[in-house]
């Protein structure tokens, strides 16, 4: 007997049961699908597919009514925290409010309904959109051009590293090492490996910044470049950035800017002005495109003049006035590889071009285009003044929390931070046994998502809090009070047990992660 689709006990409004899976809701012969009437002759499978290629039976999926489908996923949605429910102060993730207007934009049929291989003459709006976004991001970063193919930050990193490689190769140099601070995000070293380089870790100094001595010691002509997050993942601005840039450039290395923390410096300082050669941006962070429970994002890569020729292609370009001569690189024209002017003469103002020494394609098509449309919307609403305000308020919020919470948590690097503050539960743990993880789980009971914990790795019992600029002072107050209450309770009799019991108000309590790995159940069919 299959499960009852109409029973709502898994909605936290109603109860604390688990939600049956689609497969448990399934009943043979039930269905939701409806397809349009086509009038095409109904040849049988036998007539259409050679027997050796035919399935013996249909793929067993689930068989549910539309009613149960709706109830199932609506209930699941009620079992999910999201920005739209409350504050999400995950450090390094910039979980700001995602304006609803962007959903409308991303659903416009004129954007969402466009096939990626349609000829340039039929996608002028899209090409114009990408070019406009490129110009905006170049203005924000101080770079010369950008590619939008990378689908997320890590893809941007790898793209950037391949650009670095191509650049050095073009100069007939073989450089094998890329420097990474020990506070870096895990994608950085992973990307370095995939880019065919070796990682050299540079330690942080006592102030939480790159140790200049160690950096200098690590630099030589085998260094292809350095990857920096600035402000770094400790939320601190690398004050010596000019010196770092000089030192790296001196040995012929390039500077890569991990833009995940760009939110802090919008309109204040630009990676290009700091001396960076390559920048990836996380549109799903700084530019407010929603994170989708893990994705999609978009990780465009902007570069300085000397790297433009290596960018992935084809890329959307504004066409010059001269016949078929786009502004840079080799014109690919209407359908990637053909003359740009196949449409009505003079109509096509945008086309495709592949840079002369392009590293090649890094995405099936043109990147996460609909995410780009969201980001451009966000950027235009804010404009130059608004983006600056974003940075100010983000930094203001983080510092307010830092000062307010300095009494109850460790602040490993207690100096003005940028858009996020790294706290630590190290003293708390020593004193009470309550760890960062417990603090995180207790915060859920307080009505907040937890901060990022145990990252960056260089801080013991790290609690990395990024309030973002869209949370109000009142929310910060409530969050701080919750943090304080948790610390105070930990000091009380039975505090450790209470902390371990958290969260008690959520539909499930602490989850057995060890068991998940030990007895792997990656699909419903693998259940014991």
């Amino acid at each position, binding site marked *: 007997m299959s499960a009852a689709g109409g029973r709502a006990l898994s909605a936290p409004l109603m109860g604390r049961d688990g939600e049956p*899976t689609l497969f448990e809701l399934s009943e043979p012969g039930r269905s939701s699908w409806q397809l349009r009437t086509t009038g095409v002759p109904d040849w049988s499978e036998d007539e259409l597919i050679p027997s050796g290629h035919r399935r013996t039976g249909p793929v067993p999926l689930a068989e549910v009514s539309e009613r149960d489908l709706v109830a199932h996923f609506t209930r699941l949605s009620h079992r999910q925290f999201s920005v739209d429910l409350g504050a999400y102060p995950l450090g390094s993730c910039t979980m700001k409010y*995602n304006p609803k207007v962007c959903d409308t934009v991303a659903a416009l049929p004129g954007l969402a309904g466009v096939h990626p291989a349609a000829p340039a003459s039929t996608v002028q709006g899209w090409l114009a959109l990408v070019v406009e976004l490129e110009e905006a991001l170049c203005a924000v970063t101080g770079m010369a051009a950008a590619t939008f193919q990378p689908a997320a930050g890590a893809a941007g990193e790898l793209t950037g590293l391949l650009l670095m490689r191509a650049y050095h190769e073009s100069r007939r140099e073989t450089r094998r090492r890329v420097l990474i601070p020990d506070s870096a995000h*895990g994608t950085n*070293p992973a990307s370095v490996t995939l880019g065919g380089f070796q990682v050299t870790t540079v330690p942080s100094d006592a102030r939480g910044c790159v140790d200049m001595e160690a950096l200098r010691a690590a630099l030589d002509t085998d260094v292809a470049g350095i990857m920096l997050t600035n402000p770094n993942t400790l939320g601190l601005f690398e004050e010596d950035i000019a010196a770092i840039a000089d030192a790296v450039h001196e040995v012929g290395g390039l500077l890569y800017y991990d833009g995940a923390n760009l939110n802090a410096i919008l309109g204040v300082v630009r990676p290009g002005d700091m001396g960076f050669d390559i920048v990836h941006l996380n549109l799903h962070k700084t530019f407010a495109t929603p994170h989708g429970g893990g994705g999609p994002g978009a990780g465009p890569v902007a570069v300085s003049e000397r790297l433009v020729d290596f960018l992935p292609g084809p890329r959307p370009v504004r066409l010059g006035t001269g016949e078929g001569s786009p502004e840079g690189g080799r014109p690919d024209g209407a359908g990637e590889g053909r003359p740009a002017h196949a449409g009505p003469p003079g109509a096509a103002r945008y086309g495709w071009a592949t840079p002369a020494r392009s590293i090649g394609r890094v995405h099936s*098509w043109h990147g996460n285009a609909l995410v780009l449309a969201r980001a451009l919307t966000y950027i235009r609403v804010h*404009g130059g003044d608004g983006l600056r305000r974003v940075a100010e308020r983000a930094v203001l919020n983080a510092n307010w929390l830092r000062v307010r919470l300095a009494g109850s948590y460790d602040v490993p690097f207690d100096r003005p931070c940028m858009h996020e503050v790294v706290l630590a539960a190290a003293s708390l743990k020593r004193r009470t046994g309550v760890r960062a993880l417990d603090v995180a789980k207790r915060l859920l009971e307080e009505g907040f998502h937890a901060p990022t914990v145990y990252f960056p790795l260089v801080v013991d019992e790290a609690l990395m809090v990024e309030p973002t600029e869209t949370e109000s002072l009142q929310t910060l107050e409530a969050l701080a009070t919750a943090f304080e209450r948790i610390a105070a309770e930990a000091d009380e009799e039975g505090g450790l047990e209470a902390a371990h019991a958290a969260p008690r108000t959520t539909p499930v309590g602490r989850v057995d992660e060890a068991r998940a790995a030990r007895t792997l159940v990656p699909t419903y069919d693998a259940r014991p």
Partner: protein
Amino acid sequence: MADYLPHTETEVGAMLAFLGLGSAEELFAAVPAALRLAGGLAMAPGEPEPDVLAHMESLADANRAHRLVCFAGAGAYDHEVPPVVRALAGRSEFVTAYTPYQPEVAQGVLQAVFEFQTMAARLAGLPVANASLYDGASALVEAVNLGTTAAGRQTVWVSAGVHPHWRHCLATFSRGSGHQVVEVPLEGGVTRWPDEPGEPVGPGAEPPGVLVVGYPNYLGCLEDLDAARRLADAHGALMVVAADPVAAGILRSPGDAGADVVVGEGQPFGTALGFGGPYLGLFCCTLAQVRRLPGRLVGETVDVQGRRAYVTTLRAREQDIRRERATSNVCTNQTLMAVTAAVQLGWLGTAGLAEVALRCARGTRYLREAVVAVDGVELLTGDAPVVRELALRTPVPAATVVERMATEGYLAGVALDALTGADGDGSVTADDAAHGLLVAVTERRTRAELDGYVAALDKAVRS
């Protein structure tokens, strides 16, 4: 002043005072003065949201492609996405959540992904599916990374029937990973594998660690998976199948044919054409490879009270823990598209997916029979069986056909040279590339549209 910031001027003042600061500028004291932007960003000031929406609408209106009846495919298909799927997958809890780091408040996304994994795995005929990669190309690249590591050999034989863009991506990333990618050409629409295992294919001296084949391949033709498996076995190589997930609804599963890894483009499952993204990289593999799996994996477990619960698992593979030795650098992926696919596959169900696949095949057959009557148009791959897409040879350049048919209201398909480049590649000659038109017929195409297409084609090929 248009923005989404809550701070009132009073609050900003009070907060700065709390910090002992006199102005917002002082917040940035750590930024060396010399580097600071003097005049602000060289950008227009903010505009009210309704103005911006109007601008975005005007950009959308400047496109024409979405108003054409779509016969383009090449990995991105115009399938039915019903309002119910859009409504559910668009719920803000799914859209505005982060990666499920706190499973106690993320069971919604976790369970949906678990259901997605189950259905993706069933489709592939393999026991494991991950929680998504960026797109088909990135899934292929990851599969090759996995395969070469598993085999301990860098040489990769890739059928030229694999989507050209995917092969281009593989080439790009191989510059970093150091794989030797050898393209195995097509003959009569299908891969011309060496007759004998020992026979060389291209310049690669080393035997292959990985062998990649499309099913169906990008020209729509059905490859012989058994032959590929035998060859892989002969070399001790892993077999990666780049499968079309809709055609999989009617075809023998790649897992059944012995694939070690199945990758695919999941866009057909509920995701908008969207000018190419965000899409959904499908990745399935055998249990033997699960510890090399790239990206996120959701597993079932229990909570402290023994209640069923879901959590991301085998996390030690991932970049945030394993860093430079991670199986992949992927972090942000395409979870929302995986959730969307779960909803769409839930809506289609067992019978619906089979029906969609069947209808695609019927439409393709109908077009194939009708189109040969058009003067000068031929089937590029001859009699090779095709399922949901077919390649034509047109007497005038295919790009011209596409432009002409756009004025008649049809997106005629994808000119092959737009995929392969003007010189063609192992899949087609330069001449075939210039005259090759890849045409996809989905379940949404009516007989009237098909007949109209053929009539418009007839007109378009007259030079």
